[in-house]
């Protein structure tokens, strides 16, 4: 189980490396001259490239982060496997739900 989680985390990390570069680029570009909801949504609503990219991003992050947090809880908080597994699952679902909701909201679906 630990080996599978390890590889899943590494795999999602590899997927997200280019995503992060793009995201940083997008953010640094977008914040110039101030931000407004109108400005952002004008660019993102109905934009299928945007929607696809961030959907994949959200799913990857929802797998990657909980696996990491799980290990930290196990090593630094000393929690048992059963507990951290549940926490990881819950966090994964939380990230997924909130993240996909954000994609739907900003992408105008």
């Amino acid at each position, binding site marked *: 189980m*630990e080996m599978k989680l390890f590889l899943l985390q590494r795999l999602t990390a590899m997927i997200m490396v280019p995503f992060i570069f793009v995201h940083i680029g997008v953010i640094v570009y977008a914040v110039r001259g101030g931000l407004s909801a109108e400005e952002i949504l004008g660019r993102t609503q109905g934009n299928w490239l945007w929607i696809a990219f961030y959907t994949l991003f959200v799913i990857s992050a929802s797998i990657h982060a909980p696996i990491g947090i799980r290990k930290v809880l196990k090593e630094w908080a000393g929690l048992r496997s059963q507990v951290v597994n549940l926490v990881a699952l819950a966090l994964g679902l939380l990230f997924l739900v909130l993240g996909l909701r954000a994609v739907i909201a900003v992408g105008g679906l």
Partner: protein
Amino acid sequence: MLAVRIWRGEENGEYVTYHIPSRENQTVLDVVTEIQRQVDPTLAYRFSCRVGVCGSCAMTVNGKPRWTCRSHVKNVVENGVIQLEPLRNMPRIKDLVVDMTEFFDKWKKAGGEFIGTRTRQDRPALVDPESKARKQADAAIECINCAVCYAACDVVEWDKDYLGPAALNRAWSLVNDERHADPKGVLKKSMADGGCNSCHTQGSCMKHCPVGLSPTGSIAGLKKRSLFELLGGK
């Protein structure tokens, strides 16, 4: 004069400070030996070869796990003080002596025992020392199980299941040993819970290894090999 703070006791105990003359050529092993012979014969510590080839004298010197026979006082003393403690991550038997049972158990658990496939009737194996696999094995083979890396590793402290750098380094050397009967079995053991997937590449093991080995590298090799295994490749 040198002030030497030494842990006396087992899990419960205290630091006792001894004072001995500072000498021109003095290793920490010389210091401990002088204290035990001239000052306090009840002090318990381990040593054997005293020339840096056996690893028996490993202990924590001013916070770092080292071989005392290869630690010149000049290089480790801090403000005229040397603090000596037993190695971390192992139960204390007495003073500077620890119980290494679990360390060796984990070595076995990682598949460290070599199983030959030939008998004395067969020719010796012809292993090309320049082959990629043999080079990988050679880079890891010199380990003498002194447990300095095991003591340096935080994950060993945080995760009771973690097999540790020495055990996994050994596993890697066997995965690459063409004479070994069951390299796949060793790989499988290193991929189990508490195996290579628990390593966070902190690098404390390779930083402190007195032989200059890199369990970090060996474990990275195991991780890479695991990816191929799980993807069904070879």
